[in-house]
Protein backbone atom coordinates (compact mmCIF):
# COMPACT_ATOMS: atom_id res chain seq x y z
CA UNK A 1 0.00 0.00 0.00
CA UNK A 2 1.24 3.47 -0.83
CA UNK A 3 1.31 6.22 1.82
CA UNK A 4 -0.25 9.55 0.96
CA UNK A 5 3.05 11.38 1.36
CA UNK A 6 4.51 9.55 -1.66
CA UNK A 7 1.80 10.94 -3.87
CA UNK A 8 2.27 14.43 -2.43
CA UNK A 9 6.02 14.30 -3.06
CA UNK A 10 5.52 13.09 -6.64
CA UNK A 11 3.03 15.88 -7.16
CA UNK A 12 5.45 18.46 -5.74
CA UNK A 13 8.25 17.23 -8.00
CA UNK A 14 6.02 17.42 -11.07
CA UNK A 15 4.89 20.91 -10.09
CA UNK A 16 8.52 21.98 -9.64
CA UNK A 17 9.32 20.64 -13.12
CA UNK A 18 6.42 22.68 -14.48
CA UNK A 19 7.57 25.85 -12.74
CA UNK A 20 11.12 25.36 -13.96
CA UNK A 21 9.99 24.81 -17.54
CA UNK A 22 7.78 27.88 -17.36
CA UNK A 23 10.73 30.00 -16.26
CA UNK A 24 13.61 28.68 -18.37
CA UNK A 25 11.90 27.76 -21.65
CA UNK A 26 11.83 30.37 -24.42
CA UNK A 27 9.38 28.70 -26.78
CA UNK A 28 5.82 29.87 -26.15
CA UNK A 29 4.33 26.42 -26.86
CA UNK A 30 6.70 24.70 -24.43
CA UNK A 31 5.86 27.28 -21.79
CA UNK A 32 2.20 26.48 -22.33
CA UNK A 33 2.90 22.78 -21.93
CA UNK A 34 4.65 23.50 -18.63
CA UNK A 35 1.42 25.10 -17.41
CA UNK A 36 -0.45 21.93 -18.33
CA UNK A 37 2.13 19.93 -16.37
CA UNK A 38 1.50 22.07 -13.29
CA UNK A 39 -2.26 21.56 -13.63
CA UNK A 40 -1.70 17.81 -13.79
CA UNK A 41 0.42 17.89 -10.64
CA UNK A 42 -2.37 19.67 -8.80
CA UNK A 43 -4.88 17.13 -10.07
CA UNK A 44 -2.79 14.32 -8.63
CA UNK A 45 -2.91 16.01 -5.23
CA UNK A 46 -6.69 16.32 -5.49
CA UNK A 47 -7.14 12.63 -6.33
CA UNK A 48 -4.71 11.50 -3.63
CA UNK A 49 -6.50 13.48 -0.93
CA UNK A 50 -9.88 12.33 -2.23
CA UNK A 51 -8.79 8.72 -1.83
CA UNK A 52 -7.24 9.40 1.58
CA UNK A 53 -10.23 11.22 3.05
CA UNK A 54 -12.82 9.10 1.23
CA UNK A 55 -14.29 12.28 -0.27
CA UNK A 56 -15.60 11.92 -3.79
CA UNK A 57 -15.81 15.70 -4.18
CA UNK A 58 -12.09 15.64 -4.91
CA UNK A 59 -12.72 13.61 -8.06
CA UNK A 60 -15.47 15.98 -9.16
CA UNK A 61 -13.11 18.89 -8.62
CA UNK A 62 -10.52 17.23 -10.84
CA UNK A 63 -13.20 16.96 -13.51
CA UNK A 64 -13.82 20.72 -13.31
CA UNK A 65 -10.09 21.45 -13.41
CA UNK A 66 -9.79 19.34 -16.55
CA UNK A 67 -12.67 21.17 -18.24
CA UNK A 68 -11.12 24.53 -17.46
CA UNK A 69 -7.72 23.29 -18.63
CA UNK A 70 -9.17 22.09 -21.92
CA UNK A 71 -10.91 25.42 -22.48
CA UNK A 72 -7.68 27.21 -21.57
CA UNK A 73 -5.70 25.07 -24.02
CA UNK A 74 -8.11 25.85 -26.85
CA UNK A 75 -8.07 29.61 -26.25
CA UNK A 76 -4.34 29.69 -25.49
CA UNK A 77 -3.38 27.88 -28.67
CA UNK A 78 -5.64 30.21 -30.65
CA UNK A 79 -3.77 33.13 -29.10
CA UNK A 80 -0.45 31.48 -30.00
CA UNK A 81 -1.57 31.10 -33.63
CA UNK A 82 -2.63 34.73 -33.64
CA UNK A 83 0.71 35.85 -32.18
CA UNK A 84 2.63 33.79 -34.71
CA UNK A 85 0.63 35.30 -37.54
CA UNK A 86 1.58 38.84 -36.59
CA UNK A 87 5.14 38.29 -35.25
CA UNK A 88 6.36 35.33 -37.33
CA UNK A 89 8.07 33.94 -34.23
CA UNK A 90 7.38 31.72 -31.24
CA UNK A 91 10.24 33.01 -29.11
CA UNK A 92 8.90 34.94 -26.14
CA UNK A 93 12.01 37.13 -26.09
CA UNK A 94 11.04 38.49 -29.50
CA UNK A 95 7.50 39.27 -28.41
CA UNK A 96 8.29 42.42 -26.47
CA UNK A 97 5.90 44.98 -27.89
CA UNK A 98 2.26 45.41 -27.03
CA UNK A 99 1.49 46.89 -30.45
CA UNK A 100 3.28 46.48 -33.75
Amino acid at each position, binding site marked *: *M*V*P*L*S*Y*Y*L*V*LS*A*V*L*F*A*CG*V*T*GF*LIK*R*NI*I*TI*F*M*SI*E*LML*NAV*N*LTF*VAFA*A*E*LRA*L*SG*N*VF*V*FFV*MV*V*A*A*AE*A*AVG*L*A*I*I*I*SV*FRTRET*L*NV*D*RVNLLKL
Partner: protein
Amino acid sequence: MHLVLFLIFGAVCVGAAINLLVQKHPINSALSLIVVMGSLAVLYLLLGAEFVAAVQVIVYAGAVMVLFVFVIMLLNAGEEEVLPHSSRVAIVLGVPGLILGLAVGIWVVARYAGFDRIAIGGPRVLSGSEGFGNPSSVAKLLFRDYLLPFEVTSVLVLIAILGAVVLARREE
Protein backbone atom coordinates in the same frame (compact mmCIF):
# COMPACT_ATOMS: atom_id res chain seq x y z
CA MET B 1 1.90 -4.62 -5.72
CA HIS B 2 0.48 -1.11 -5.50
CA LEU B 3 3.78 0.22 -4.24
CA VAL B 4 5.70 -1.40 -7.12
CA LEU B 5 3.29 0.02 -9.68
CA PHE B 6 3.46 3.43 -8.00
CA LEU B 7 7.25 3.42 -8.06
CA ILE B 8 7.43 2.34 -11.71
CA PHE B 9 4.91 4.84 -13.03
CA GLY B 10 6.05 7.58 -10.69
CA ALA B 11 9.58 7.17 -12.04
CA VAL B 12 8.28 7.20 -15.62
CA CYS B 13 6.30 10.32 -14.79
CA VAL B 14 9.24 12.23 -13.33
CA GLY B 15 11.60 11.04 -16.06
CA ALA B 16 9.26 12.23 -18.79
CA ALA B 17 8.71 15.54 -17.01
CA ILE B 18 12.47 16.11 -16.84
CA ASN B 19 12.76 15.08 -20.48
CA LEU B 20 10.19 17.77 -21.27
CA LEU B 21 12.56 20.34 -19.80
CA VAL B 22 15.68 18.96 -21.45
CA GLN B 23 14.37 18.60 -25.00
CA LYS B 24 14.95 21.51 -27.35
CA HIS B 25 12.34 20.68 -29.95
CA PRO B 26 8.70 21.35 -28.91
CA ILE B 27 7.41 18.16 -30.56
CA ASN B 28 9.68 16.09 -28.30
CA SER B 29 8.42 18.01 -25.30
CA ALA B 30 4.83 17.35 -26.36
CA LEU B 31 5.44 13.62 -26.67
CA SER B 32 7.07 13.61 -23.21
CA LEU B 33 4.01 15.35 -21.84
CA ILE B 34 1.80 12.60 -23.30
CA VAL B 35 3.90 10.04 -21.41
CA VAL B 36 3.48 12.05 -18.19
CA MET B 37 -0.29 12.16 -18.63
CA GLY B 38 -0.53 8.47 -19.47
CA SER B 39 1.39 7.42 -16.38
CA LEU B 40 -0.66 9.84 -14.27
CA ALA B 41 -3.77 8.02 -15.51
CA VAL B 42 -2.30 4.77 -14.15
CA LEU B 43 -1.67 6.46 -10.80
CA TYR B 44 -5.31 7.61 -10.75
CA LEU B 45 -6.37 4.01 -11.29
CA LEU B 46 -4.16 2.98 -8.36
CA LEU B 47 -5.99 5.55 -6.25
CA GLY B 48 -9.32 4.03 -7.24
CA ALA B 49 -10.41 7.02 -9.36
CA GLU B 50 -11.54 5.18 -12.47
CA PHE B 51 -13.60 8.00 -13.91
CA VAL B 52 -10.79 10.51 -13.55
CA ALA B 53 -8.34 8.08 -15.14
CA ALA B 54 -10.60 7.62 -18.16
CA VAL B 55 -11.14 11.36 -18.53
CA GLN B 56 -7.40 11.93 -18.17
CA VAL B 57 -6.68 9.65 -21.11
CA ILE B 58 -9.52 10.89 -23.29
CA VAL B 59 -9.37 14.63 -22.62
CA TYR B 60 -5.74 15.28 -21.70
CA ALA B 61 -3.65 12.65 -23.44
CA GLY B 62 -6.16 12.61 -26.29
CA ALA B 63 -7.82 15.89 -27.13
CA VAL B 64 -5.55 18.49 -25.55
CA MET B 65 -2.30 16.92 -26.69
CA VAL B 66 -3.60 16.38 -30.23
CA LEU B 67 -4.36 20.10 -30.23
CA PHE B 68 -0.81 20.86 -29.07
CA VAL B 69 0.83 18.61 -31.64
CA PHE B 70 -1.44 20.02 -34.34
CA VAL B 71 -0.46 23.59 -33.51
CA ILE B 72 3.25 22.72 -33.32
CA MET B 73 3.08 21.21 -36.79
CA LEU B 74 0.85 23.96 -38.15
CA LEU B 75 3.29 26.66 -37.04
CA ASN B 76 6.28 24.53 -38.04
CA ALA B 77 7.95 25.22 -34.71
CA GLY B 78 11.64 24.40 -34.79
CA GLU B 79 14.33 24.16 -32.18
CA GLU B 80 14.19 26.99 -29.76
CA GLU B 81 16.79 29.65 -30.42
CA VAL B 82 18.56 31.35 -27.56
CA LEU B 83 19.00 35.00 -28.34
CA PRO B 84 22.24 36.59 -27.15
CA HIS B 85 20.24 39.09 -25.16
CA SER B 86 17.80 36.50 -23.91
CA SER B 87 16.95 37.10 -20.32
CA ARG B 88 19.37 35.62 -17.83
CA VAL B 89 16.80 36.47 -15.20
CA ALA B 90 14.78 33.44 -16.27
CA ILE B 91 17.69 31.06 -15.72
CA VAL B 92 18.62 32.80 -12.48
CA LEU B 93 15.06 32.41 -11.21
CA GLY B 94 14.37 28.96 -12.69
CA VAL B 95 17.05 27.04 -10.84
CA PRO B 96 16.08 28.41 -7.41
CA GLY B 97 12.48 27.68 -8.41
CA LEU B 98 13.32 24.00 -8.88
CA ILE B 99 15.27 23.90 -5.64
CA LEU B 100 12.43 25.61 -3.81
CA GLY B 101 9.95 23.10 -5.24
CA LEU B 102 12.09 20.16 -4.15
CA ALA B 103 12.53 21.75 -0.74
CA VAL B 104 8.78 22.00 -0.41
CA GLY B 105 8.52 18.35 -1.39
CA ILE B 106 10.99 17.33 1.29
CA TRP B 107 9.18 19.50 3.78
CA VAL B 108 5.95 17.72 2.92
CA VAL B 109 7.63 14.38 3.60
CA ALA B 110 8.96 15.58 6.93
CA ARG B 111 5.69 17.17 7.89
CA TYR B 112 3.32 14.48 6.70
CA ALA B 113 5.40 11.44 7.52
CA GLY B 114 3.08 11.26 10.49
CA PHE B 115 0.06 12.32 8.46
CA ASP B 116 -1.64 8.99 8.98
CA ARG B 117 -1.73 9.64 12.69
CA ILE B 118 -3.30 13.08 12.48
CA ALA B 119 -5.72 12.26 9.67
CA ILE B 120 -9.40 12.06 10.44
CA GLY B 121 -10.31 8.57 11.46
CA GLY B 122 -6.94 7.27 12.51
CA PRO B 123 -4.28 5.42 10.57
CA ARG B 124 -5.06 4.72 6.98
CA VAL B 125 -3.18 3.80 3.87
CA LEU B 126 -4.27 4.44 0.34
CA SER B 127 -5.94 1.42 -1.12
CA GLY B 128 -7.51 1.19 -4.53
CA SER B 129 -10.89 0.26 -3.16
CA GLU B 130 -13.21 -0.91 -5.88
CA GLY B 131 -16.25 1.18 -6.54
CA PHE B 132 -14.96 4.32 -4.89
CA GLY B 133 -14.33 6.61 -7.83
CA ASN B 134 -16.20 4.68 -10.48
CA PRO B 135 -18.29 6.60 -13.02
CA SER B 136 -21.67 5.90 -11.43
CA SER B 137 -20.75 7.20 -7.98
CA VAL B 138 -19.05 10.27 -9.48
CA ALA B 139 -22.08 10.86 -11.69
CA LYS B 140 -24.43 10.75 -8.70
CA LEU B 141 -22.42 13.47 -7.02
CA LEU B 142 -21.84 15.47 -10.20
CA PHE B 143 -25.46 15.56 -11.34
CA ARG B 144 -26.99 16.05 -7.92
CA ASP B 145 -24.78 18.16 -5.66
CA TYR B 146 -22.73 19.83 -8.37
CA LEU B 147 -25.42 20.29 -11.01
CA LEU B 148 -25.19 24.09 -11.17
CA PRO B 149 -21.37 24.20 -11.49
CA PHE B 150 -21.66 21.52 -14.16
CA GLU B 151 -24.09 23.62 -16.18
CA VAL B 152 -21.95 26.73 -15.72
CA THR B 153 -19.03 24.69 -17.06
CA SER B 154 -20.92 24.08 -20.29
CA VAL B 155 -21.31 27.84 -20.72
CA LEU B 156 -17.58 28.24 -20.11
CA VAL B 157 -16.77 25.68 -22.79
CA LEU B 158 -19.13 27.39 -25.22
CA ILE B 159 -17.41 30.74 -24.62
CA ALA B 160 -14.01 29.06 -25.05
CA ILE B 161 -15.07 27.62 -28.41
CA LEU B 162 -16.28 31.02 -29.60
CA GLY B 163 -13.14 32.69 -28.30
CA ALA B 164 -10.87 30.20 -30.04
CA VAL B 165 -12.69 30.66 -33.34
CA VAL B 166 -12.58 34.45 -33.09
CA LEU B 167 -8.90 34.56 -32.09
CA ALA B 168 -7.64 32.08 -34.67
CA ARG B 169 -9.65 33.55 -37.52
CA ARG B 170 -7.68 35.23 -40.26
CA GLU B 171 -8.46 38.91 -40.41
CA GLU B 172 -9.61 40.27 -43.68
